[in-house]
Every structure is written in C-alpha cells, then in structure tokens.
C-alpha cells in the first residue's frame, strides 16, 4: 500500500451514476477522482441503445434542469429522437432518443477529462477506509490509498457479477468486462446488507445479415425537441436513423418452449430477482402463453457500426437455441449474431439503509447511487448519481443535503420510493408512480428545478436569468389572454367552425377558448392580433397552464396538504421502541427506515395513520417539555 493522494471526493464507478456524481462534485469545486475498472467503459450503455422514454425522459430533463450532463450528451450523440405520448396529456409527453453508443461514451469521457478538479483513474477499488466512524479514504487493488472526505458508490451491476448464457456461466460484468469481486465482501464486513438482483439483455446482430424489407420502418420526429433546456432544436438537428419493427411467431415460441429446461432462469441456476418490466422472452412465452406474437424492435447501436439491438427478446438460453429462435423471425432468417443475449446477476444494496440524501445512515460520508441501489435504467442511475454527488459536497461543506420532494420531481419520487420501501426487484421509474404527475411535466422541469440547481451552484447566472425571463413572459401572456374578450366576429365564427367547436353567441374570453378540447393557444393566433411574438417554449407553457388550469390547481392543493406533513421533521436518533402507543410492526419499520419527516414516515409500508397520530402527539409532548 502507498499513499497516492489526498482528495475531497472519491467516486467508485464510471457508469451513468458515476459520471453525474463526478461532474457535480468537481463543478462544485471539490477535488474529485472517479475510479473505473476500465476507462473505455465510461458511460457505457450495456443494454438498450436509447436514452429517455416514458418517465425516464422526465428524469433526463430534470437532471438537465439541475445542471447535470446526460441531456447535453445525448443531444449531441443521438441518431433518432421522438416525443412519445403526444396523443395524451402534456404530463405524460416523454422524450426518447436513440443513441450512438460509442459516440455517447466518447463524448462523456471527453467532458469528464476537461472538467477542472476532476481526475479519472483506471482502477478497481477494494477497500473503504473509515476513521472515527467517518469515511476517510479508498484503496485500489494495486494498493494505492486515496484519502478523502466523502465516497459515492456507483458500482452499477459489476459487484460479483456473473453472466449466464444457458449452461455457460462467466464471472464477468456486463459485456464481458471485469467484475468487481472484492468490494462486496468489504461492504458486508462493514455491516451493509447486500442482495442479488438479475437482469438481462438481448442479442446484437450484424445489420448486413438482416432482411429489413420484411420489417416496418420506425421514424423519428420531424420537429425535434432537445433534452437539454440549453439547446435549441436548430442547434442539434440532423438526419435521423431508422429503427425497425418485426414480430415473433408460433415457430419462435415452439423453439423456446422445447428448450426451456436449458434456461438457467427456469432451471433454477439464477438466484437473483428479475424485474417484471424486463422479462426475458422465455418469461413472456410462459407467462403470456396465449399471446400469438411479441413485438421486436431492431435498433442501431450507432452510426459507425452495423450492430443492431433486438429489443423485446432478451434471453438466457444457450447459444444454439438462441440462433434457432432468432432465425424463426421474419427478417432475421439469416441473422449473424455478433453478441449473444445473456442474463446477468449482481450484488446490490437494500436502499432502506440510506437516507433521502443517499448517504448511508450508519456511515457518515458514504453515499450510494445508481443501479447498485436496486434501481434499473441509465436515467434512474444518472439521477441518483447527480444527487449523490451534490450531497457528498454538501456533506463536506457542512450544509443541509439536497432532498427533492415527491412534489418537486420524478427524482424525488424515485429516491423516496427506494429509500422508504426498498425494492424486491430492480426499480424502474414509471409515470404512474408520480402522484403529482400533472405538475411534474417534462416541459416544466426547468421551472421546477433550475432555481434549485442555481442555488446549489450547478446552474450559471446566465441560465438562471434566462429562466426568470421565460417565467416573466409566461406570466404576462397568461394575464393578457385572460383579459382579452372575443366577440362573435366573422373571423372568430369561421375559426370555431373550422375546428368543429360550438359557436359563441356573445363574447368569450380568449382563455376560455383555449380550454376547449378542439382548440389551443397556437391555433387562436389568427383571431388574436394583439399577440406578442413569443418563443415556442413560452407559448407551450401558456397553453398548458391555461388549458389544464382546473386540474393543475387541484393537484396544487394536494401538494399543499402533502407539504404540511413533509414539514414536520423527525429526529434521526429517535428510538421508536420507546414510544408508547406505536404498534410493534410500526416500531420495527420506523427504526429500520428512520424517516426524516412525518410524510416520509406515513409512506412506509406497515405504518398506519394511527401510528402517525401517535407520532404527532409524541412530538408535541417533546416540544412542550423543552
């Protein structure tokens, strides 16, 4: 062992969580080192070649609004982009982009390299040093000691990872990379609970061996929306790549059924718990036996490669079965598999051991973020990485941690969920998990979170000023529109007729017309001569905020109630065993989670409203005694 350096923050792992954590810490002025087993795998996407999607797109925009990097990198390296759910309400619009995987990695690595205060090092961390109960350093496999004040664990799926393709099992991380084998044992020694999760990925194929004419092309959007609020569409426009759609059939299912016994999943070789929303094709065929076909999306892995990703068909069947099954599919009859599908098992933690700041309750200075916390997905990982990185800095500087509430953003929902409930399977973000989703839209992530990012120090003065200006314009225009009354003039009558909506007899306020389902702010421009020229994002806000005002107000009221309970703080060192009147189950759960406020306590499974009443009275008693 030798002393290498004394730094502020050590980030263990260079995946999507690690990158955001490292950038945030360094940008906030901390001397930061990010360690990765292979620097060529920084920001790697070992599974699907896309960023965003329903609710995940929200996360990326929130990361960007707080000053994170993912949105900017994907804006630069996307090859197709699409706004999903545009037929639905604005709350569930979601952005998704196909990525050029290699370009994404290279771009992110380059940004890390050019960030002041940040060093990246190729090394496996095998030990965490503690002094007086606090984190004091990390040790590499080669014996280099880095003394530091805070550590963020971002090991993703590499911890004691093993990959399974039928009977063939390798002790490796994703994509044949070296796993981290030593740190698990060290964490267990410290008293941290670990368990096994599993997930999987489908095969990759050479595009030249596929017959695309048998598949349906999938196009990107003509009018694109950037992920980053700092980019304008025209800055990032480019020709878009195509994806393709094909289907499994009875023959495919037959091959799979006949070989089920060779699947480690069904043969009981895999111990880990797999996610429901990422089922292998074996799972799908067993669980939905009467479904005649399953969709498969064939997606490019990048611009400078012919490899294609077969979305919808992850598997842990042996190679020979995989060849047979993929080749039953229209367009894949002669497919050349470049990488076989595999299932992967790995160690991760029970996130109930963390505070909402992502710091371990029992280890000051030790933070944990990303898939290692039991989540799944690049975006979920990046979001936690950003928060973990920020809070490592807040911790070092002796400041209050940044905790986003469920009413602030999907990031708040994500962290609150995993910390309060833990997860039985890798946690995926979904819009239905956000109870205030009408307020947590992807279009207003900047208004929700950029002021917070500014206060933390990750948002520039300039960007913050731009936001204030945008909000001013929105407010003024809403007020103007509410004040304008339209008479039943010829042009108004004609417009209403054209959009098949009921005519007006006397006057109608412009804002009331916007609320009609057939109309919106933009189409009314022609009968609104006083309208100022406004940027697209301002017009969008005006439209949404007027059109859905009733529903939005209703949720705002709910948030008000919600915040009252969140505002009642609970001491972290409260021993719930000593509180009379709490039920046994509640005592145990509360002692385990040690919630930071009453709202959080009320969301713990096993804590009833009566228990919350008891806590309220207990706190009032304490207050009066002091």
């Amino acid at each position: 062992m030798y002393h290498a350096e004394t730094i502020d923050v050590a980030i263990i792992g260079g995946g999507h969580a690690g990158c955001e954590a490292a950038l945030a810490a360094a940008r906030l002025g901390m001397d930061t080192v990010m360690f990765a087993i292979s620097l060529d795998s920084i920001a790697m996407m070992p599974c699907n070649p896309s960023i965003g999607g329903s609710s995940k797109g929200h996360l990326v925009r929130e990361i960007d609004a707080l000053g994170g990097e993912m949105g900017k990198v994907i804006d630069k390296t996307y090859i197709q982009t699409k706004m999903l759910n545009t037929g639905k309400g604005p709350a569930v619009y979601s952005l998704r982009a196909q990525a050029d995987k290699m370009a994404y990695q290279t771009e992110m690595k380059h940004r890390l390299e050019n960030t002041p205060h940040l060093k990246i090092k190729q090394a496996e961390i095998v030990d965490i040093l503690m002094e007086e109960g606090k984190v004091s350093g990390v040790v590499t496999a080669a014996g280099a000691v880095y003394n530091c004040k805070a550590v963020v664990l971002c090991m993703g799926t590499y911890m004691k990872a093993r990959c399974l393709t039928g009977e063939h099992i390798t002790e490796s991380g994703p994509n044949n990379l070296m796993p981290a084998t030593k740190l698990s044992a060290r964490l267990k020694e410290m008293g941290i609970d670990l368990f096994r999760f599993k997930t999987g990925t489908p095969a990759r194929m050479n595009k030249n061996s596929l017959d695309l004419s048998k598949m349906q092309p999938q196009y990107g959007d003509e009018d694109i929306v950037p992920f980053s609020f700092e980019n304008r569409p025209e800055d990032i426009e480019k020709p878009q790549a195509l994806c393709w759609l094909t289907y499994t059939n009875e023959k495919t299912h037959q091959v799979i059924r006949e070989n089920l016994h060779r699947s480690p999943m069904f043969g009981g070789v895999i111990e880990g718990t797999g996610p429901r929303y990422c089922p292998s094709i074996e799972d799908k065929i067993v669980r939905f036996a009467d479904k005649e076909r399953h969709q498969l999306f064939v997606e490019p892995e990048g611009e400078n490669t012919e490899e294609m990703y077969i979305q919808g068909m992850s598997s842990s069947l042996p190679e020979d079965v995989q060849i047979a099954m993929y080749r039953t599919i229209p367009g894949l009859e002669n497919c050349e598999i470049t990488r076989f599908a595999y299932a992967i098992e790995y160690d991760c933690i029970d996130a109930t051991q963390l505070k909402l700041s992502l710091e371990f309750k029992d280890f000051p200075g030790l933070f944990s973020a990303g898939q290692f916390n039991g989540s799944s997905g690049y975006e979920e990982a990046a979001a936690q990485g950003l928060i973990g990185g920020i809070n490592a800095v807040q911790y070092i500087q002796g400041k209050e941690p940044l905790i986003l509430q469920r009413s602030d953003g999907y990031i708040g929902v994500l962290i609150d969920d995993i910390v309060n409930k833990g997860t039985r399977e890798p946690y995926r973000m979904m819009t239905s998990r956000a109870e205030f989703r009408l307020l947590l839209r992807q279009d207003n992530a900047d208004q929700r979170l950029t002021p917070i990012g500014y206060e933390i120090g990750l948002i520039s003065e300039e960007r913050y000023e731009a936001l204030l200006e945008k909000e001013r314009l929105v407010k003024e225009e809403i007020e103007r529109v509410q004040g304008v009354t339209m008479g039943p003039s010829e042009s108004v009558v004609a417009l209403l007729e054209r959009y098949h909506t009921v005519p007006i007899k006397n006057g109608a306020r412009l804002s009331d017309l916007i609320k009609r389902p057939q109309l919106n702010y933009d189409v009314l421009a022609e009968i609104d001569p006083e309208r100022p020229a406004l940027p697209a994002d301002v017009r969008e806000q005006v439209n949404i905020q007027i059109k859905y005002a009733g529903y939005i107000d209703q949720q705002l009221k709910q948030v008000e109630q919600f915040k009252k309970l969140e505002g009642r703080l609970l001491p972290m060192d409260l021993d719930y065993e000593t509180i009379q009147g709490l039920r046994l189950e509640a005592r145990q759960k509360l002692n385990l989670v040690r919630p930071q406020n009453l709202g959080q306590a009320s969301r713990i499974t096993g804590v009833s409203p009566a228990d919350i009443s008891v806590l309220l009275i207990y706190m009032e008693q304490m207050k009066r005694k002091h």
Partner: protein
Amino acid sequence: MKREYMLDDVIAAISTPMGVGGIGIVRMSGEGCIAMADDIFIGKKKLTEKATHTLSYGKITDGKGGEIIDEVLVSVMKAPHTYTKEDIVEINCHGGSLVTRRVLEAVLKTGARVAEPGEFTKRGFLNGRIDLTQAEAVIDLIHSKTELSRQAAVNQLEGRLKTAVREMREEILNMIASIEAVIDYPDYDIEDETYGNMEKGTTKLLTQMEKLLEGADRGKIIREGLQTVIVGKPNVGKSSLLNWLLEEDRAIVTDIPGTTRDTVEEYLNIDGIPIKIVDTAGIRETGDVVERMGVEKSKAYAENADLVIMMLDGSRPLEEEDKEILSFIKEKKTIILLNKVDLEQKLSLEELESFVPKEQILFISVKENQGFDMLIDALKNMFLDGHTATAEDALLGNTRHKDALYRAKEAMEHCLETITMRMPEDFISMDLQDANRALGEITGDTSDEEIIDRIFTKFCLGK
C-alpha cells in the same frame, strides 16, 4: 398510493354517546367548516354571518336543495376559543339516532371527513388546548381504537357488499392499467381504450355505486349493533346465557339467517346498546349434547367481533383450550363470565388474571340465576363510558363505508365529465385512481404497487 394523511382538514362525527336520549350532536371541526355547514343549513341568517359562540335555529337538508332531514339548533364556535382551537360547528339534532346519522352523512357530503377515534381531542392537544398530562390518554385512545375499528370496519363488511366493491375495483383497476400501460409503453401493441368504451364502463360503475348507496340506507338498521360472540367449552352454560339475555330483553329486533346454514344472528338492545350475537344457532343446536364450536371456530368469530363474552366453568381448572382462546382474545373487548360459582371452585383465579384484568371477570351462576345484572352493568360501562364510547364506535364502519363509497361515486362522476370533455386518457386515469383509492378504504386493499402489478399481469411488456 395511500390516501394522504391530513393534518387540518374538516372532520366530523356524532359526538354524543349512543343510546342516550333523543338528542344527538354532530360536531365538525376545521378551517372552513362553518361555510360547509351553510351548504346544508336553512336558517334566518347564514352561519358564516353569525357571531362566535352563538346558537341558531334552523333546518338541515340532505345536500344543497335536498329534502329536510331535521329541525336543529346549531352552535357556531370560532377559533381559537374552542375545544380543538379550530372553528367548530355543532348540530344538535332532535330526531333520534337514525336522524343524527343522516345529518352526519349530509355533513360528509359537503366535504368533511369522518373523524378518527379521538381526533377532536388529538387536535385540541396538538393545537395547545389540552394539558400535557392528557397526552397519554389521547395516545391510548388512538392506539386502542383506530386500528380496532378499522379492522372491524373491514371485517364487518357483508359478504355481498364486499364482493360488489371488490368487483368494481377490479373493473376500475383494469381500466387504469389499460390507460397506464399505453402511457408507459407507448410503442407496444396495446390498444387504446376508446372513449366510448370508457364512457360505458364508467356509467355502469356509477349506476352500481348509486344502487349500493341506496341500499346502504335501507340496510342501516340491520347493520347496526355490536358484533358480539359468546365462546367457551361445552357445558359451561352458553345457551342458558343466551336464553336469559333474549328472555330478559324482549327487545329483539329480528332474526336473520346468515349465509351459512348454522349461523343465525340475534339482535337485542340492552339499555340502548344495540347488540348482535353471532352464531346463536351454533350455541342452541349444540345444547348440552355435542359441542360444535371448536377452538378454531371460536377464534374465527372472535376475530370479527367487537365484543367477546367468554364463559368458563369455575368448577374445572383452566385447560389448554381455554388458555389458547384467552390469549387470542386478549386484544379484544372481553368479558369473562365465571359460571358455576355455586360449586366448589377449582379454577385458579391467579392464572386467569394473567390473561384478563380483574375487573373484566364476573362471577355468575346460571343455575341460581345469579350475577346477570353485573353483566348488564359491565356492558354499559364498557360502551357508554364517557368519551370512549361515542356512537362512532359501533357505527363507524358503516358511516365510513358510505363516506368512502360516496367519494368514489363523486370521482366517477368527475371521470365521466373528463371523458365527455374528451380530455386525454391520463386525466381519466387520475379520476379513476381517486375512485379506486376510495373503494380501497372500504375493502382495506390499499397498496402502492397494485396499479403497476396490474399493468404487468395484464400486459406483456418490456425489453
């Protein structure tokens, strides 16, 4: 998602003990409660215009413009000089307990929520009104009653109602899952629900809810009453006790055959306490010959009961069977009747008292017709003892169910409006989720994960 825990919304309850006199008081507390009361009050002046701590004469209607329920006196007390330190309205009803119930229901329709047991006192304490020394008592109250009544409310559900509510939830959950699956997996070949289908489904559910709400009114009397079960080994005198209760009382409301052949429930009214004794047929049939009510069955009945009367034979020592039942009913309101006190006593009182507090043990002799009066007194003490025995206690379940069902109906009405306006599906889902949550309060099924569970059971999704 769980229903949010509310700190200061408007709560309401019947605040007079049950079975006492003709006057019942419905109390409301919380900001805005005076304006809410105005929605259903007809008087010379609006309540909001009255000075604090005044009494107004008027009438209470069943919702704005609805039929008149009762002539009332309403006291308006404005914060902070009130019991809870919040605005309080108290409606003094004259028409007896049924009318009082209807007034409470009308109040709930204005947007108030049924108070949890002890909640007025809790608020008084939290708002600094009540002395610290009473905190323990408040905690005890909440602790002992809320869970019990919640559980009881769920258990008291009639099979038919439970099934109906469960079925409605199933349909709503399926609708939600269909909408949410498309939102979270927009690329997948799941068909969008058509507005026409959703409209049909919603209308059908609305009709069902309205029917159930009407039925709730009709069945009110039948469902009132403390669920009481008499347990004990063969030959301890259960059937004699039952006969005595029924003969003495003569105020039996009705006999209702239960769903199973051998369950018959008897209703009686002891000094105003409506009591429902479960499985009277089981007790009668077995008589002194064969005992059919084994330990398991006793437990099952006791589980659902508000009150357990256990009979023991004082001339025999406690047996394992007895102890098993005793430890099982510890958490319940229990009266132990020690029969055959006229014979030589072999049962160890010390051992018995390790299970049940002394004051809950009564010594009787069925043969000598001794000690039954003490039973009546014990019953009265248990349920009519000041603030621990309000009418909410026994009737909670029903009012709560109705309140929840009513909120579900409101959500579905809103849903229909959302559909008619052709709002996007995610807005429809919001309304459906409100309805689902309300119905879940009735059946006790509230899980954060149930929507997501349903999505993945119903649809095959994922990379």
